[in-house]
């Protein structure tokens, strides 16, 4: 079955093709024109160059968040149009999970996936590579690097930092308290290839079922304030 994977949650845009789980190719662009101009032409290019037509597609996979509000909408709307038009299933995967699947895969690697979310916060999730695949250790969340640090320390293992928030983490985390390094650049950001790999095994739905997961900062901010308030209340008890 031919699967098209799309990724447009941050600065880069990419499209990838898989046939029965085998990776056929990817086009990725990290700068330049807006995703609305580049994403679907990338998909067309891949289909043409692997001698397929759009009608050969059996599944569309797309990163559904977190990430840029506009970028996610572009990718998801495009995925919906294809799924609806072709009457094929669609599946959404977490951007952070796609990032992990496209990252370093040495057994036991601890992956800290971070996307810049402004206000010194990152969209973040943690993974451990077991049996060649990243296994999720926590849900996707928006968190400050200061709050992330003690959690990373608690695992007592060195961390590999991924995502466009990796440098922020790298420059903020305390080298004296824990070990960490940046993932090699080609493996550091989320990509359509990662989306395609992460999508394996996730139940698909129709175009209608595809929904964005924005992890809004304002909501996350409120939750954070709640957490801080609760901690303060506990301290007063």
């Amino acid at each position, binding site marked *: 079955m031919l699967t098209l994977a799309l990724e447009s949650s941050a600065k880069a845009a990419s499209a990838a093709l898989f046939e029965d789980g085998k990776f056929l190719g990817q086009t990725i662009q990290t700068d330049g024109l807006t995703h609305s101009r580049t994403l679907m032409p990338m998909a067309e290019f891949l289909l043409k160059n692997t001698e397929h037509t759009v009608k050969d597609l059996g599944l569309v996979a797309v990163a559904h968040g977190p990430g840029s*509000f*506009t970028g996610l909408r572009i990718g998801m709307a495009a995925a919906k149009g294809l799924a609806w038009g072709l009457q094929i299933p669609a599946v959404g995967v977490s951007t952070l999970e796609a990032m992990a699947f496209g990252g370093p895969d040495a057994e036991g690697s601890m992956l800290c996936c971070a996307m810049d979310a*402004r*206000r010194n916060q990152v969209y973040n999730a943690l993974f451990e590579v077991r049996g060649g695949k990243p296994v999720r250790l926590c849900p996707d969340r928006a968190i400050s690097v200061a709050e992330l640090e003690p959690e990373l320390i608690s695992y007592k293992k060195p961390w590999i930092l991924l995502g466009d928030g990796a440098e922020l983490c790298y420059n903020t985390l305390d080298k004296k308290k824990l070990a960490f390094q940046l993932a090699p650049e080609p493996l550091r950001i989320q990509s359509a290839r990662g989306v395609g790999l992460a999508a394996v095994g996730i139940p698909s739905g129709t175009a209608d079922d595809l929904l964005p997961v924005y992890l*809004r*900062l*304002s909501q996350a901010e409120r939750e954070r304030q709640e957490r801080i308030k609760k901690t303060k209340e506990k301290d007063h008890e």
Partner: protein
Amino acid sequence: MPMRRWGCNMVAITNSEVETEEVGEHFGTQIPDGSVVALYGELGSGKTAFVRGMARGMGIDCLVNSPTFTIVNEYLGKRNLFHFDMYRLGGADELYDIGWEDYLGRRGVCAVEWSENVSGAFEGDEYAVRFEKLGDSSRRITIEGGNQSC
């Protein structure tokens, strides 16, 4: 039109829409890219006129209309000005739904009318421009904040 300035604050009294535009124009010549300008003031207090002046001051030759219905107007030129109107929005959460965060990432200045409706959404380094009606056509305009002097 008399202007007093102290520290990073500025106060101006205007007696017509044209004068309000002029204050905005002067402000527009000073304001750096990446700034958020939060405008506060009741109906008809001169917010759009001020932004019209800002655009001129920023060197953008564009028709500046009220964004009440469109929510955001983009004025693109040598510099970019993104003109928001939160009149129809219910709160800070809805700010996200209109792509606010992405606008912050674009190079330009964000001017926000009816900032009262989205209190808590700004990060603290924004300029606050407050419009007070002193009479039928006279206004007191107070500008504070940012980390540059105006």
